[in-house]
C-alpha cells in the first residue's frame, strides 16, 4: 500500500520507529526521519558507496534498499562506530593515516571496512583494495585508506582496542 508503513528497527543499538512511505529509501529514512545524517548520498544508484551502512552484519547500499525492507533489522551507521568519545580502532587508523580529506565518502569506507575486518581479520593489501572497490573517494587517491585499514587490522589483531 502506498500509505505509510509503520517501521521498527534498531540503529546503533537504539530502537527506533517511524512511519514511512514504501518508496522512501533506507538512506533517506536514516537521514530525514532519524536525523542520522552521517550516512551520505553520493549517487543514489548504487555505485559510489557513500551511503554504505551495515544491515544485520552486512555492508549494503542504503540507497538501494527501501526503509520498509529494514523492518526489524539491526543497523549500524557511522554514528555508531565510536565508543562514546573514543574513536574505534579503524576510525583512529583513518585519522593517523590521513585517510580522509573532505570526509564525504568516509562513512561508507568505514562501514565497509568494519565488515571486511570482521570477516577477515588478516586481509592482504590486494584483498583490501578489492573489498573497498565499491566505494569512491575523489580526494585521497585511496592509498592512505588502504594503509589505514591494514593498520587497523594489525592493531585489532594485537588487541589494542
Amino acid at each position, binding site marked *: 500500500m502506498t500509505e505509510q508503513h509503520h517501521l521498527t528497527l534498531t540503529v546503533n543499538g537504539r530502537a527506533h520507529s517511524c512511519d514511512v512511505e514504501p518508496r522512501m529509501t533506507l538512506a533517506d529514512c536514516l537521514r530525514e526521519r532519524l536525523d542520522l545524517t552521517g550516512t551520505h548520498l553520493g549517487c543514489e544508484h548504487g555505485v559510489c558507496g557513500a551511503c554504505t551502512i551495515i544491515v544485520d552484519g552486512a555492508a549494503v547500499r542504503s540507497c538501494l534498499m527501501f526503509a520498509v525492507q529494514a523492518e526489524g533489522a539491526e543497523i549500524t551507521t557511522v554514528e555508531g562506530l565510536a565508543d562514546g568519545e573514543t574513536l574505534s580502532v579503524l576510525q583512529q587508523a583513518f585519522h593517523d593515516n590521513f585517510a580522509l580529506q573532505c*570526509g564525504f565518502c568516509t562513512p561508507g569506507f568505514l562501514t565497509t571496512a568494519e565488515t571486511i575486518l570482521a570477516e577477515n581479520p588478516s586481509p592482504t593489501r590486494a584483498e583490501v583494495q578489492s573489498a573497498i572497490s565499491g566505494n569512491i573517494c575523489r580526494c585521497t*587517491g585511496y592509498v592512505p585508506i588502504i594503509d589505514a585499514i591494514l593498520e587497523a587490522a594489525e592493531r585489532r589483531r594485537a588487541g589494542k582496542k
Partner: protein
Amino acid sequence: MTTSSPYIGASVKRLEDRRFLTGTGRYIDDVKLPDMAVMAIYRSPHAHARINSIDLAAARAVPGVIDAFCAADIDMDLPVIPLRLAPFDGFERFLQRPIAQDKVRFVGEPVAVVIASDRYIAEDALDLIEVDFAPLPAVTSVDQAASGETLIHEDAGENMGTRYTVGRGDTDDAFSDAPYTRRERFTTNRHGAVPMETRGLIAEFDPDAPLLRLYGATKVNFFNRRHLAAAFDLPEEAVELIETDVGGGFGARGELYPEDYLVPIASRRNGRPVKWIEDRRENLTATNHSRDIVCDLEIATSNDGKILGMRATVQGDMGAYVRTNGGVVASKAAQFLPGPYRVPSFSCDVQFLITNKTPVGTFRGPGRFEANFCRERLLDMVAADLNIDPAELRLRNLMEPAELPYRIGELVPGDVNATFDRGNYPSALNQLLDEVGYADWKDRQGEIIDGRAHGLGIACFIESSAAGPPETARVTVAPDGNIEIRTGASSVGQGTETGLAQICADYLAIDIDRINVLHGSTTLVPTGGGTFHSRNTVMAGNAVRMAAEALRTRSIELAALRWNTDAGGLEYRDGAVHRGDDPGSILSLAELAAFARSRGPDEALAADAAFDNEGKLSYSYGAHAALVAVDVATGVIEVKKYVLTEEIGRALNPAMVQGQAVGGLVQGLGGTFLDHMIYDEDGQLLTGSFADYLLPTSTELPEITAIALEESPSEFNPMGFKGAGEGGIVAVAAAVGNAVVHALNAHGIQINDLPITPNRLRAALRATGT
C-alpha cells in the same frame, strides 16, 4: 620569529577529522531549517531546441507541491551569470541566464522549477511538466561550431566565443630555417571535477529585512556575494553566504551557477527557506565540465633537439554558454604549452567555440593537464625522430636556474607580467630519474615481462599557484585563552583548518588544540579572496601569519598598559608576555584577553591582517614518471609504478602535501583512462550515470612515490610556500601516454587522444596489423 616551529613542516594530524569520522560533519544536505521546502529542477532533455510553451498546471496540482515556475513567472530582470576569470572580449555575447527563456542550448539547462514539501513529491511533479520543444540541430564538435552552419546564440552571429593570437619571438623565422619540424593534433577528453558531494544550496530570502542568506556556498564567496547582491538589487551587507562542510571542490564547486539565483528566487517567492540538492544525474550535466580541447601543435628544433620554436592552434569546446571561469581552460593550455623549457619563439591561435554541451569551467590543473599532454607527447616523438633519449632531450631544453626568473611574455591577453620565479627544473627531473631507476629502464623500453609489454614514460611540468585578490584573517583570543581564526578563504575539504592552525600555533607559540578555524562565510570577515588556484596555504597562510604577528605586538602593548611599563622591556614567548626586568611576571593570552575586555566593550585581544602577493605568482614545477605494463592482445594497461617530484617551496604539512599529490595523481589516472563525458550527435550525454561515467577506484592503483621538493622556497612570501594542490594531476596523461607508447615501441603506435582505453588501444594496434 623567536620561537621554534613545532607545527609548520610537521605532519600534524588533521583537526577536521573527528567530525567526519563520527558522522557529525555538517554538509549542506545535513542542514535543516524550520519550514524549509525543497526545490527540484526540470532540465532540458534537448541539446538545442526552441521552447514553444511550458505547462506547469499538472505539476502545480500535485498534493505537496508549493510552487512551480519558469522564466515567464519570474518578476525580475533575469541577471546573467558573470565572468569571474579570463573574461575575454566577445564572451559577453554568450553568457547564461539562470533559466531558459525561449531556447535551450544544452541537455541539463534549467527550464522550470518545482518547490514541494519533499524531494519525492517534487520529482513526481517534474514528471508532469509539459514543455513543447521544437528541436534544432545540435552542434557537438568544435569543427561543427566553427563552420557556423547552426548558430547557438543567433544574436552573436557566430559560434566563436572569442579568438586571439598570443606569442613571443618570431616563429616564422624559427620554422623556416629549422632542420626539423613535426606537427601533431592532440585531443583531451571532456571530463570534470565530479566531487563526491554534489552541489547544494539553501536560501532564506526575506525581502523586507532585507536579507538573503545562502547556505552551501564555498570557494569564492565574496565575489559571489557581490554579484548576487547586484542581481537581487540588495546592498552587499544584506547578502550572507554561509559555508558548511564541503565534500570536495576540485574547481567546479562554488562558482556561480543558475541554481545560485533560482534557489533565492524560490525562497523569495514562497517566503520560506528552500533547499536544493543536486542529484548525481543533474550533477553530470549541470556542473561544469572541463578539459575539452583540440590542439594542433608544431615544433621546430635543431638537429640536436634544441627547441627553436613552437606554434599551435588550441580550440576549446566551451559548451553552450561562457560561465564564470571564462576562457581559463584553453587560455591556460596555450600559456603553458611551452612549459618549463627554453622556447625562444612561440605563437598560438586560441579559439573558444560554443557548442550544445554542458558549459565548461575549471578542473584541478585547468589547461595544464591538457598542455602537458600535448607538449610532452610531442617531445617524445621528437626524441624518437632525432634518436635522442627522451630524458636527455628534456635536460637539453629545460631552463637552467641562471635563466630564471623568466618573463614568459603576454601568453594570455593582458597578462603582461607573467614571470617564472626562481627554481631548478633540471634538479626536479634528475631526482625523478634517479628515483624511478630511469638509467635501468631506458634501454628496456618495450620489454616483454610475463607476457606484457613494459614501458617507462616521463613528463615535465610547471604550473602557477596562488593568484587573485588578497586574503584576510582575523585572530582573536577568547577570555579562556582559546584562539579563533577567521578567514575569507574557503575549505573544500583539503585540510585548510589544520594548515592555518599550524601556522597560528607556531607564530603564537601555543598548543594547536587551543585553535579553532572558521572559514569562508561572508559573515566572518569583511572581505576575502577565496579558494582556487592552489592558493590557501600561500594566501590565507600568510594572512594568518601576519595576524598572529600583529597579535603578538598587540599582546605586548596590552601587557605594557597592564603593567604600566615600557613595551620595550617586554617579550612575547610561549604564548604569553614576559617582563624582562622581572622574570617571574607573566601575562598569558587569556589574562591579556580578559584585560582587553575590561577596558571597554569594543576592546579585544584580536588582530586582523590581509596578505596581498600583488599578483606575483609562485610556480610549482616538477616531473612525473609512469611505468606501465600493456597486455597487447587485450589493450589492458596496468600502471605498475608512478613517481613524481614537485617543488613546492616549503611543505606546511608533509602528510597533507602527500595527500594532495597522491589524490591528484589518481584523479589524473581517471582523466587518462576513464573519465569521459561522451555525447552523441544529437547532443545527448551518453555517460549520465556512474555506470558509464567511470571514476578511478581502489583496484586501479600503481605503487606511488610522491616526492615534495623544498629546494626553492618562493621569494614572494616570507614562509616560502608555493601551491601544492595541482602538481599531482597535471602531467599524468603526459607521462602515462609516453609510457604506453614506449611499451608498444615494437608496434609503432602513437597516442594523441585521451582517454586511453583498451578499445582505442586495440584499434590502434589492429591498424598496424597487431
